[in-house]
């Protein structure tokens, strides 16, 4: 019995489809279907648009993925992104150089992440509430400070234009930046001691704490990092559309990000998955959104479809990683 078990498990593993695999397959199928049946899908302009959209979504999702691995959730990302970038643009209009302004904005964003992290790690407010309330606080503060919804980046910033339209060997810079951030986070998660701490904390926070891991500093720095990644996504967006619309906060972007993470196969119970899952999810959601836009679905119906898919993904997650009545915590919502 004990001898046969590993062999069986091994054989089982060979045939079992991981969620990641399933999602890759669906993404491929969708891509092929769209390529075959949608007229403009394979045009170069559309593919570029797809990639650029994917760049922002993917960057945000990489940050969110890192948080979810540590059994957290960060609903402040979009708020931090729009307010941080808007703050930087506003600073540059007040006479700062754009480079300086971006750096100061980064400090503000890191500070927001620090507050969120402290609320979660030290005040022990459940992450979902801390970030929900922080999002509303950050955005409310931002709206008080900036009179207009849309802030345009100053013209003539070379590197910003390059992010928006430059290519390297035919690949847009924005995609390269996404790839860079993803690679950094992936290496960080898998190779550094700190990354292993994140996995351990996500797997079982109490055990990690009892073991003597610095769970609180780990959690706090996670949220600071996530805020900075969101800020990077915001800069990326400013480069792409030469400005930032703070009303983006009211859109469902943050749920798209969650959709990417959950679809990609990072369980919300933490401790599993990695950047690869995020990238797979990003590709699927990017293709989906792009296809729906070409098919002229309204914004609302796109939301509906995306949410139903997210719900299905969550249900799948619940079936694959079911809640165990004997070990799950009561307060775990």
């Amino acid at each position: 019995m004990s001898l046969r078990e590993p062999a069986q498990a091994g054989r089982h593993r060979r045939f079992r489809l991981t969620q990641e695999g399933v999602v890759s397959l669906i993404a491929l199928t969708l891509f092929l279907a769209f390529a075959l049946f949608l007229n403009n899908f394979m045009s170069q302009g559309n593919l570029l648009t797809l990639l650029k959209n994917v760049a922002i979504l993917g960057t945000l999702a990489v940050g969110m993925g890192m948080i979810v691995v540590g059994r957290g959730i960060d609903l402040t990302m979009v708020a931090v992104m729009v307010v941080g970038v808007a703050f930087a643009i506003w600073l540059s209009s007040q006479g700062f150089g754009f480079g300086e302004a971006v750096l100061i904005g980064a400090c503000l964003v890191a500070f927001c992440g620090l507050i969120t992290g402290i609320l979660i790690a030290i005040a022990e407010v459940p992450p979902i509430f801390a970030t929900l309330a922080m999002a509303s606080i950050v955005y409310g503060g931002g709206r008080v400070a900036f009179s207009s919804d849309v802030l345009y980046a100053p013209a003539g910033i070379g590197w910003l234009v390059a992010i928006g339209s430059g290519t390297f060997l035919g690949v847009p810079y924005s995609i390269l930046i996404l790839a860079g951030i993803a690679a950094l986070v992936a290496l960080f998660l898998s190779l550094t001691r700190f990354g292993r701490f994140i996995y351990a904390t996500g797997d079982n926070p109490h055990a990690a704490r009892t073991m003597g891991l610095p769970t609180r500093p780990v959690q706090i720095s996670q949220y600071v990092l996530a805020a900075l990644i969101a800020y990077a996504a915001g800069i990326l967006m400013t480069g792409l559309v030469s400005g930032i619309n703070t009303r983006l906060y009211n859109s469902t972007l943050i749920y798209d990000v969650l959709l990417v993470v959950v679809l990609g196969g990072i369980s919300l119970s933490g401790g599993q998955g990695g950047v690869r899952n995020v990238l797979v999810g990003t590709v699927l959601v990017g293709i989906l959104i792009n296809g729906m836009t070409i098919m002229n679905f309204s914004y609302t119906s796109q939301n509906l479809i995306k949410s139903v898919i997210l719900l299905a993904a969550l249900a799948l997650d619940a079936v694959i990683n079911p809640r165990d009545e004997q070990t799950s915590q009561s307060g775990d919502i």
Partner: protein
Amino acid sequence: MSLSESLVRLRYRVLPDHVLGELLTKKWVDSAIPFAALVLVIAIFAPIVPRFFQFGTISLLSGEMAELGLVVLGLTIVMISGGIDLSVGSTFALAVTTALYTMNVMGLSLGGGLAATLGVGAVCGAINGFMVGILRMRAFLTTLVTLIIFRSVFDIVFPQISTDIVMNYPESAAWDFLGMGHVLGLPTPFWVLAAIALILHIVLSRGRYGWRLLAVGGARRSAHNAGINVRWTVFSAYVICSVLVALGGFHFAARIGSAASDIGAGMELQALTATVLGGISLGGGRGSVAKALMGALFVLILSTSLLALAIPGPVNALILGLVLVTAVFLDVRWVKNRHKLLRAVYISPTFNKLPPAISTTEGPLVPNDRLRASEPIGLGIMDGAEDAIFDREGNLYTGSRHGDIMRWFGPDYTRYEIFAHTGGAPQGMAFDAEGNLAVCVGGMGLYQVSPQGEVTLLTAETNRSWTSIADDSVMKLADDCDILPDGRIIFSEATVRFEMHDWYADALESRGNGRLIVYDPKTKTTRTVLSNLIFPNGVCTSYDGESVLFAESWACRINRYYYAGPKKGRLERVIEGLPGYPDNINRASDGTYWLALMGSRTPALDLSLEMPSFRRRMARRVSQDAWLMPNLNTGCVLKFNEKGEILESFWDLGGTRHPMITSMREHRGTLYLCGIFNNRMGALKLPGADQDWCGVDSYWGKPT
């Protein structure tokens, strides 16, 4: 008595600091924080908001309260079950649309429109409930997504029917009454809310469903293991929530008569703030209707006041967000630290100066080793025999730590059987005239065991005293009982403040926490006859037929209480200043009484009894096993007469056989010794005693 001593004595008589700890054990203490917050927000806004206290404002506010209140109540139910529902705002929007469409456009009656609206709510709730309850998905994310889904449905449907809604108006007096009507000056929906709140309060606090809901939220695993259908309970919570939200939407539709495209947006944040602020715990198991309504009122006053002060929407959201974070933070901290706070303040020692002890260096109480001659019974088998009793056939009955009553067979008491199982900690025992055994069971109450071994509950509840904060009708530690000649059972309850295993905390307090209770089997009534006794322990009816003797352990004295005769109802001291802590009292064959001292007084503890603040510091700062405790290592058995004169004593000073004694029983020329911490009983031959004497006969006469 010195002046400072009198002051200390006065301070502990006038300021009852045990009340604080008892207040903290009350469930409604949780409501103190939301109530304070409510008072605070009123105090802040009343002076700066124009027309805050005018009746029109209040009437308008109560109308809005009816809508938000229903949503918050719905969310409360879900949160008590351990979940959360963020889709309330979207469900609200869908409900309003349905109500307006069915009433305005389709022209249904009020009943029809209401049914359709509640139906839509139920469907939304069932979707959430199925996902969260049956599939056991995570409530927060799931309802976050259904929030978007329901909102998208609303966004798709609403533009198509909005003109129809505005163009038509329903001809329904009932609809107008619901929207515009007032009863006793307040809007109709407010009374609907009041009625629903009342029903929900009764269901949650007294109904079976409410208890199950609280159980599922409080300890999901235990509820599951106890056989509660967790999945369907959670499912039903979501359905009820959405139906209540839909009812709120129906009220809104009746009041406003139209809808905008942003209706219900952000409502989840409002409702969530209200519930959490009210003290409905995230993660479930705690919460009440009153708290939810207080939270709702807080949020409503806050948001309408900010609106009246013309503060822009984002700032409003900012303030709400700050309030939410603060509320969640306080809630998390409160739940986490409440028991620590309770631990720190619950034990509240009081002044208890003992009279000087009767000498043990001369007279009858000089320690000796007479108990060393006793022979052990049931060595290693017995475990915690607090008391023992004999029937006329010579069988020995003892309790055990496992809740059993064991019957040992004479004459050598080597064979035994489990006579009955009580499930608690059997303590004092007494036989009535019919041969039934009355048993005090610690933690449970007074029980009766028939000669066939059937256990029945006699009483576990006495009359509630009016002045006590804690509910003292429940029995925590019934200790020893005896039976009066008329068949009434009189028994002591050692303490109403501590469980049995915390007896040393009661010793540390040395307050009159105990009482003497009488149970009348004829009328099946239970009355407390004497209260504020300091750990009343052994009880024994006197030979005079009109009084009982009882021991107060931490006061080291024996009292006599008259239940009949000319002195009926009076209390007399019999012995004061015992050198140890008296436990059980039982009759002796020569018309005197046996008394067990479970331990000896020590000078250090005696001194500390005069220093309550010292003992409080000790209880707070030192771990329990380092407390000054009554010495229960060495005690004795002594004999005293009706006048309270001590005649002789039996010690085991070397501590080899029976150092610690809680009870003793004389039977046919032998004295049997019990100790609650001993693994045996002892049998000591009494050569001079009546070799034919049986305790039961002494009470009820020889069988004819």
